[in-house]
């Protein structure tokens, strides 16, 4: 599974990345993580609000930091 965090690298983005890592770990999903800071790429996903969470190239969340439990739901759905 490929998980990307889109955002300029502010505290919110870091927090989201941290939560995503913990969520994947708890589910035992093997995932690669990537931070996308290039605005051209971020907008390429259609995202105007950062931070955003992209799972397997699909934007699942934008504009807020989701908690670990919530991210687990996203990952489960994409992993199914």
């Amino acid at each position: 599974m490929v998980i990307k965090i889109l955002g300029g690298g502010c505290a919110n983005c870091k927090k989201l990345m941290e939560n995503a890592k913990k969520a994947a770990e708890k589910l035992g999903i093997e995932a690669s993580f990537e931070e996308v800071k290039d605005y051209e790429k971020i907008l390429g996903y259609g995202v105007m609000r950062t931070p955003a969470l992209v799972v397997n190239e699909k934007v699942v969340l934008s504009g807020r930091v989701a908690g670990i439990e919530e991210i687990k739901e996203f990952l489960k759905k994409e992993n199914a």
Partner: protein
Amino acid sequence: MFSPVQKFADFVVYNLLNIKEGSKLGSALNFFIFDTIKIFILLFIIVFVITFIRSFFSPEKTRDLLAKNKRKTFIAHILAAMLGIVTPFCSCSAVPLFIGFVEAGIPLGVTFSYLIAAPMVNEVALGLLYANFGLKIALIYIISGEIIAIISGIIIGKFGLEKYVEDYVFKIKVGNVEALEQKKTLKQRIKETWQFTVELIRKVRVYVVIGIGIGAWMHGYIPTGALATLAGKDNPFAVFIATLIGIPLYSNAAGIIPLVSELRRLGVSMGTSLAFMMSVTALSLPEMILLRRVLKPKLLAIFVSIVGCGIVLTGYLFNFIIG
């Protein structure tokens, strides 16, 4: 509404701690306890309500609404300034929002009306202003922020400054994201609002307490009116200087406002206090550094100057009206 809180503060300070009523320490401590409880209660309520309203708006919807109305420019500016208050907006989103708007064909001036209103009318600031000064001042804060955003946007639009936007901005193609925020149930909305409110207050609480702490110290130890001659209504430069001091002070609105109410007591006029607060919240250095990625220095300078002038004018206006 807050008399039980006052009774509690009195009880703790004068009975439990046995500090003499009317002493400097007693009055500072009493102020600190009362203000901390009062401000956190009001902050919680107001942030919750605004966040809930916000959950119905998204930048994507905002952009589409503005793109539809871009021919009626004046209306578009008003709309943009109003949407600036209600759309959720973290300063790190300034750049992607800007690009997204420009790419959708929304005029530069309208985009700026939005970008200015968003940080200028800040929900935490609004909550604290209401808590400290009441409805009238809170409304004045919103209205003046809106007017600055509308007029600044119109001016920027009139000058045709598109050439000062970094060229790459116009080349970016914005992808289509499927409706992310599908219809949420009310329960979900409330849950998310609750989480956001708790998170926000957790983030600002230190600043609020520090602000109240300094305010409480001033309350107990500095006599009322001490700054009246320096920054009162009669000093014509006070507003201007307060605005300049506010720009590099990137503090959270949360830390500044408990202080502002104390500044008022010391004799700083309302307009000067408001100008100071607005320049702290609306013209922050980190946001300018972010915006530099999409704006050439000249446009950035124009942006800062226009907003700065707007704040100074508001300050003078309110000194004139309220004092």
